[in-house]
C-alpha cells in the first residue's frame, strides 16, 4: 500500500501512479456504462444514479462526512473525545475573548463589503466612458493581483510606528508628523485597528467590485438612459434613479460575494497582528484554537458557527445570481 500512498520525489513513480489512476477511472466508467446499458428498460433513477452515483459518493466522503464529523467534534472537550454537549458553544458566546472575536467578525461582514462595493460602484460610475477609463480602472484593479499576505505586508509598512524624534518609516505616521501631530501606534489602538486592517481588504476588493459593476453599468440599455435624459434627469438623479435600479441584482451579488470572502479572511489579520490587540476574527481564531491551542473541540465549534453564518449569505447569493442570469 505504501507504494500507492507516497511517491516521494521519484518522477517515474509519480507518472506510474497517475497512469494507474487514469486506467482505474476508465475501467470504472466502462463498468458503469456497461451496467447502466444492460437492462432493456432501465428505470430513470437507475440511469441517473449510474452517472451521478460516483460524484455523490465523493461528495459524501469529501463534504458531508467532514461536515458531520466537525459538528460531532464541536461537542467534544479538546482532543479527548469526552462528550460535553454545548459547552464549546457556550464558551464561544460567554468568554470575553470569543465575544470580541464574534463582534469583530460581525463588524467585518457588515462594514467591509459595504465600503468595498460602495467605492467600487462610485469609481466605476465616475470613470465610465471617460478618457482615461482603462488606466483608471487598471489602477484600482492592480491590488487584486497582490496576494492578501503581500498586501498586508505593504500596509504594515504604512502603519509602522517609530517614536517621536526618530525618523519615521511608516507613511501614515510621517503624515502625522508633517501635520504637527504625534506618531501613533495604529495597530494597537482599538477599536480603530480593526478598521485599519479592513482597509487592506477593501483596498484589494474594490477592484473586484468595480470590474463587475462597471460591466453591468455598460450593459444598461442606452434607450433607458436616453429616455431618462429626455425627461430631464441628470447628474445625481441619473445615478440614483437609473443606474442603481438597473444594476441592483449585480450589486447584491457583488455585495454577498465580498461578504463571503470577508468571512473566510484569515491571512490579512494573521499577517498584520496575528489576531492580537483584539483584532481576531472567527476564521483566524478557529485555526489558533485548533492548531496552536490543540483544542479541536473549540475549533470545530467556531468552524460550525462560521458555517452557520455563511449559509444564508450563500443561499441569497445563489438566488440573486440566478436572477441576474434570467435578466440576461
Amino acid at each position, binding site marked *: 500500500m505504501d507504494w500507492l500512498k*507516497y511517491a516521494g520525489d521519484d518522477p517515474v513513480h509519480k507518472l506510474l501512479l497517475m497512469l494507474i489512476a487514469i486506467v482505474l477511472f476508465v475501467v470504472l466508467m466502462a463498468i458503469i456504462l456497461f451496467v447502466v446499458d444492460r437492462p432493456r428498460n432501465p428505470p430513470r433513477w437507475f440511469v441517473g444514479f449510474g452517472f451521478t452515483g460516483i460524484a455523490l459518493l465523493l461528495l459524501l466522503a469529501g463534504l458531508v462526512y467532514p461536515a458531520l464529523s466537525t459538528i460531532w467534534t464541536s461537542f467534544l472537550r*479538546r*482532543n*479527548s473525545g469526552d462528550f460535553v454537549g454545548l459547552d464549546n458553544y457556550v464558551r464561544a458566546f460567554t468568554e470575553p475573548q470569543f465575544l470580541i472575536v464574534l463582534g469583530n467578525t460581525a463588524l467585518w461582514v457588515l462594514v467591509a463589503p459595504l465600503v468595498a462595493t460602495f467605492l467600487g460602484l462610485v469609481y466605476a460610475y465616475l470613470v465610465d466612458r471617460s478618457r482615461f477609463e482603462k488606466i483608471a480602472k487598471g489602477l484600482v484593479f492592480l491590488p487584486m493581483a497582490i*496576494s492578501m*499576505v*503581500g498586501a498586508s*505586508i505593504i500596509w504594515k509598512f504604512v502603519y509602522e*510606528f*517609530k*517614536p*517621536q*524624534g*526618530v525618523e519615521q518609516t511608516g507613511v501614515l505616521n510621517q503624515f502625522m508628523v508633517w501635520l504637527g501631530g504625534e506618531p501613533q*501606534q495604529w*495597530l*494597537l489602538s482599538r477599536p480603530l485597528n480593526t478598521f485599519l486592517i479592513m482597509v487592506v481588504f477593501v483596498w484589494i476588493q474594490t477592484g473586484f467590485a468595480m470590474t463587475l459593476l462597471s460591466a453591468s453599468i455598460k450593459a444598461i440599455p442606452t434607450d433607458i438612459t436616453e429616455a431618462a435624459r429626455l425627461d430631464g434627469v441628470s447628474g445625481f438623479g441619473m445615478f440614483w434613479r437609473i443606474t442603481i435600479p438597473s444594476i441592483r441584482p449585480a450589486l447584491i451579488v457583488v455585495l454577498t460575494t465580498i461578504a463571503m470572502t470577508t468571512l473566510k479572511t484569515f*491571512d490579512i489579520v*494573521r*499577517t498584520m497582528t*496575528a489576531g*492580537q*490587540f483584539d483584532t481576531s476574527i472567527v476564521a483566524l481564531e478557529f485555526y*489558533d484554537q485548533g*492548531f*496552536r*491551542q*490543540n*483544542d479541536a473541540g473549540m475549533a470545530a465549534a467556531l468552524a460550525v458557527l462560521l458555517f452557520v453564518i455563511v449559509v444564508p449569505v450563500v443561499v441569497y447569493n445563489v438566488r440573486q445570481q440566478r436572477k441576474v442570469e434570467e435578466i440576461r
Partner: protein
Amino acid sequence: MRIQKFGSRRRGIALAAGIASTALVLGACADTDEGSGGDGGDAEAFEIDCAAYEEFGDLEGTTVTVYTTIVEPEAETQQASYEPFEECTGVTVEYEGSREMEAQLPVRVQAGNPPDIAILPQPGLLSTLVNEYDAVLPAPEQVEANVDEFWSEDWKEYGTVDGTFYAAPLGSNVKSFVWYSPSMFADAGYEIPETWDDLITLTETIAEGNEGATRPWCAGVESGDATGWPATDWIEDMVLRSAGPEVYDQWVSHDIPFDDPQIVEAFDMAGEILKNPDHVNGGLGGVDSIATASWTDAGYPILEGNCWMHRAANFYATQWPEGTEVGPEGDVYAFYLPAETTDEKPTLVAGEFIGAFTDRPEVEAFQTYLSSSDWANAKAAATPAGGWVSANNGMDPENLATDFDKLSAEILADEATVARFDGSDLMPSAVGTDSFWSGMTEWFASDRSTEQVTSDIEKSWP
C-alpha cells in the same frame, strides 16, 4: 527555545521569512530544504569513531527524515553537523525545516505521515504528542545510555513524560543575559552590575543622565504568531530571582496558581523596568512599543546609542546586523542578568529535544548520534560564527567558536548555577504558547493591571 526559529539577521530576511511562513500556511506546502550545507564549517573534517554505529548493521542507502523549526541560516550548520554520521553509515538525512513545524507536526502525526525524527523546541510539545496523540516512541537504550553519560539529571527529566524517557536533549540556550555596549559603558564610566539593586541603580542613573529618545533599556516582543514569548523569559527570570527555584517549580507545574501573589511580585519586578516610560523603550517608543517592536531588531538601538541594555538569550548573538563585533572589547557583549545577591546564580535555560516516530535501525542509529558527544563536538565545529552551545558535558568547550559561546558553556557547567528550564515551554501549550504570550503582549499594549493579566492567564489553564 526558538533559537533558530527567528534566526534572521536583517530586517529584510525577517520580513521575507514572515512572508514565507504565512505563505506556507496558505499554500499548505512544505518548506523542503535538502542540501549539502557544505559551507557551514568544517564538520566534515571532524573525525568521529564510526565503530559506534556498526552494531546497527548495514545502513548503506537508507534514509532518515528530520522535521524541525531550524531554518536558514542555522539550518546550514545543522545539516553540516550530520555529515560525519552520513559518512560513517551511508545514511541519507533528509532535512525539512519549517517555521510552522509546531502547528504542522500534530497534523502530520494525525494524518499518519509523521517524520522519522522531529526536533522539538519545547518539552510541552513533547508531552502533547505523547499524551494527546500517543505518537512518540520511547528513546532506545543506547540513546538513554548516552543521555545518562553526557547530560545532567535535570536535562533528562525535560525529555521524560510520566516516567518514560522519550527525547534526548540536543542544544542548550542560556537566557539570563543582558546585552550592552562595552565601549558605551566604558565611556560613561558604568560598571557591570553585580546584584539586582546595582542594576536598578544603574538603570536610574542612565535614565537621569539622558534625554530625547535615549532610555536605559530596550525591549521588543513582536515575533509573528509567537508574539509575546520574549517577555515570558523576563517574567521567568524574575520569578527565579524574587521567589526562588522552588516557587518557580510549583508555578510551572501549577501547584500554585499562575496569579499567586509571588508571581504578581515577579511581574512587578519586571515592570519596574519594562512598564516605566523613563526606563524603556530606547529608540523604539513608549512602553506600548514593546508589544510591536520586533524582537529580532529590538537590541539594535544599542548600536545607535539610543539604548543601553537589552535582555536576551545567548542566541541573540546571531541576531546582530552583519559586521557587528560580539566580544568583551567589541560593539556588543552580554553580562549575566544579576540576582538579588552575588551568592546565587539562578539561570534560565532552554533547548531542543529529539523525538522519534519510527523505529527502524537507521533512525535509532541517528538518534544515538545526535545524543552523543560526537554530535555536540561536530556541531560546535560546524558553527564557526558562533551562537550555539550545549550542556552536553562531552562537548569540549575549546571547539566552541567564540568567547561568548564559551562564556555560555561556562555558565551551564558552573556548579553554582541553579538552572531552570524555560517555564512557558514546560507549561501546557494553551498557556505556554498562547495565553502567556498574548497576556504579556496585552500587559504592554493596554493599561490592564498585572493582577488582571495574571488572572486571565490562570483562567486559561486547561
